[in-house]
């Protein structure tokens, strides 16, 4: 059953649940952050419509900086701007930022410890028709390995909005991952969000498996929990929007309750969210575990639904993994 404290949308399982891409949350959140703090600036690499950076541009034209198609320069100019007292958000597709400008991020943002907020849009296979070049599947790993880097993967457009607003209030470097395709907006303005905190979406009296999910796949996990519950298999769903720093208390708690953990992410299964959970649990409370992600493959063209199913990232595959873990 739902965790009431999560204050999820009343339409969570309704056919007419509103849908929006998480990048919409960047558009709204960046304007809010800009209104709250005049130091916020947004840098754009020739993708202002698809990153939704144009919403910030409309509201604050003087604080919007068009960099052209130059992601390395965007990262380093932002490092300089942060050094000069600004709070820059840099926006592009995740395949290019942090994909192309990793070293610049490493040296001039992370090691230099300046508050640049890296916003990687169009992450994951659900980008769809654009194909493998644009479907970033390694960004969580790249970013979480950098000392001092906070890593956030919001579940829906509303949580993405909150994450952007919260990001502007932090002092250090930070990465937020966004998706292209519209996904259910199942959290509400009342749903708690705090950087570093996980959120139980679904629980039962004696769950047998804990499903830890991040990004929009947390909604998919919720569908699985409902389906499984209808067949008498009880689970708990922990949505983990902050991959670094991990909410170790919440993770330890569900691991202890269930003794079985499944993670799911739209990322390589190596090095990403599941790896972060495995690194923590292996050293603190080893449990049976399955990591659902893309298995050492690149993406390809297709519809988001086709691709998520092909790479094993839909409700059916989660439910199968739960059954296997219980056998």
């Amino acid at each position, binding site marked *: 059953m739902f965790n009431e404290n999560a204050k999820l949308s009343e339409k969570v399982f309704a056919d007419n649940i509103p849908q929006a891409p998480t990048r919409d949350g960047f558009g709204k959140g960046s304007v809010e952050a800009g209104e709250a703090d005049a130091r916020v600036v947004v840098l754009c690499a020739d993708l202002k419509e698809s990153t939704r950076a144009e919403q910030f541009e409309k509201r604050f034209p003087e604080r919007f900086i068009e960099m052209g198609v130059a992601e390395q*320069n965007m990262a380093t100019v932002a490092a300089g701007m942060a*050094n000069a007292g600004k709070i820059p958000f840099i926006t592009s597709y995740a395949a290019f930022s942090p994909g192309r400008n990793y070293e610049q991020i490493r040296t001039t943002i992370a090691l*230099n410890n300046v508050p640049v907020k890296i916003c990687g849009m169009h992450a994951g296979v659900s980008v769809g028709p654009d194909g493998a070049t644009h479907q970033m599947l390694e960004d969580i790993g790249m970013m979480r390995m950098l000392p001092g880097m906070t890593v956030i993967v919001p579940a829906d457009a509303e949580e993405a909005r909150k994450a952007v607003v919260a990001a502007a209030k932090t002092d250090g470097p930070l990465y937020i991952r966004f998706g292209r395709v519209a996904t259910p907006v199942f959290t509400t303005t009342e749903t708690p969000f705090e950087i570093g905190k996980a959120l139980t979406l679904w629980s039962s009296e004696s769950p047998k498996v804990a499903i830890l999910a991040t990004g929009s796949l947390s909604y998919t996990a919720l569908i699985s929990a409902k389906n499984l519950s209808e067949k008498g298999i009880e689970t708990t769903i922990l949505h983990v929007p902050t991959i670094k720093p991990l909410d170790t208390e919440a993770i330890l708690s569900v691991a202890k309750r269930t003794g079985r953990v499944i993670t799911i992410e739209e990322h390589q299964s190596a090095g990403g969210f599941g790896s972060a959970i495995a690194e923590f649990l292996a050293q603190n409370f080893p449990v049976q575990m399955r990591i659902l992600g893309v298995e050492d493959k690149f993406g390809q063209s297709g519809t988001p639904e086709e691709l998520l199913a092909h790479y094993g990232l839909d409700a059916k595959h989660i439910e199968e993994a739960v059954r296997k873990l219980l056998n």
Partner: protein
Amino acid sequence: MMAPTDADIEKLEKQAEKIRETIISMLVAAGSGHTAGPLDMADIFTAFYFHILSHDPKRPDWPERDRLILSNGHICPLLYATLAHAGYFPVEECLTLRKFGSRLQGHPERLRLPGLETTSGPLGSGLSQAAGIAYSYRMDGKKPHIYCAMSDGEQEEGNTWEAAMFAGKNKLHNLTAVMDRNNIQIDGMTEDVMPLEPLADKYRAFNWHVLEVNGNDIRAFIAAVEEAKAIYEKPTLIIAHTIAGKGVPEIESDYHWHGKPPTKEEGERFLKTIRTMGGKISHEYS
């Protein structure tokens, strides 16, 4: 910035020699590091920290300070030695270069040592950071001038040209870049490794104002900076033609000295050369 008198120039030249001596001592003590670039840029860094920049060693974070961004972090022995002689920290600390626990890391880290403006080493990312600072200062109506010291070798990095394009587009007149045109890089002469010329034409095509000076002539360099500050519609690049390893004739213009330090014996010989002004005087000054 006042135009320097003859006495000022003489004082600056002597200061530059002191800094060169410190560089040799630090490199010998470290046992690794870069020699040629720090020596050839010593006149320019002296001009910056002892004449051009508005700064205060007692208040490294003073918001009104001019800012010199070092892009090619590998010449940090020069930056460290200059900062120490300017009073940011004790000159003796220079001998901790590259040692465990030292604030003087092998490549500069902003947060470890007062006076460092950025973290640098990987090439090609200093000009864009300087441009980011200059852009922000102009947004906020702040007066300080932003300088970027960069190498010729790092003109091979794509990021450098992205930054040049950005600064040209935005007419960042509060940004002045200084390129150490010493013609050497690790693998050889720049024009053999990857031809860079015509550098001045390239920057002009990117909407920069370009000046060329003898980078080992302090008076000429100061005059170039004065001109750069007077240009209002464009960022300025000063191509400073320097002699790699300047001050130690036996290594001058030899690319093998780009990335290695002198041995103890070589160091003693180099110091003697500097202290006798290349053998022009018989007694070493102190």
